[in-house]
């Protein structure tokens, strides 16, 4: 069991009312497990069904395992350029 920090940006930061949240994860937890925790947060009801997650500044797959100390971010639909 360890605590991870998830960075939030743009519309997701607005929906969840914060630019970062701390979540408890069991060892061996995957990106999908993390998403279940995030969906339980207040304000998360309006998140899309499968928001993109970045692990260590790279887009992650749903079954990727999260390690303690990973840099984690929830990535809203991008609109750069």
């Amino acid at each position, binding site marked *: 069991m360890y605590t991870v920090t998830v*960075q939030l940006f743009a519309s997701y930061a607005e929906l969840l009312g914060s630019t970062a949240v701390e979540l408890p994860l069991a060892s061996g937890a995957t990106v999908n497990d993390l998403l279940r925790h995030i969906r339980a947060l207040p304000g998360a009801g309006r998140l899309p069904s499968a928001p993109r997650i970045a692990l260590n500044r790279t887009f992650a797959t749903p079954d990727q395992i999260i390690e303690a100390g990973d840099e984690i971010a929830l990535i809203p639909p991008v609109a750069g350029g």
Partner: protein
Amino acid sequence: MSRASIVTREIDLARLVEAVRSPSHGAISIFVGTVRDLNDGRSVSAIEYSAYTAMAQEELERIADESEKRFGVSAVVIEHRIGVLDISETSIAIVAAHPHRAPAMDTTRYIIEEIKKRVPIWKMEHYSDGTREWVDPTRVAKQTSPA
């Protein structure tokens, strides 16, 4: 000069062009994005860009690497500005130099298309009527009629 930067100041295009100019190149292709006064039929007064800066710079670097694999080694610099931008201001400049023109142009086109898909940068449009909204290119355009 770093190859990919997220900046909070004005983008100086001439400086970026000089950074890639070289005796071995015959072509420099450039894409500049500017803030348009109209989007989806609504009058825009300004755009506020924000980014996950650390990842955005790394993703831009990865895209530049991919373009070199596809189109050959070139000199590439990319700057994306964040913060509140007025109408007509430059939000992004992509500059690619190559010995030949076709791969130079292919490189800038590849880079802007990939940026639109996967670089963590967001924009909130400020409208002339005082409202504001996050831009979500994945959302289907609003229906103008319920039918």
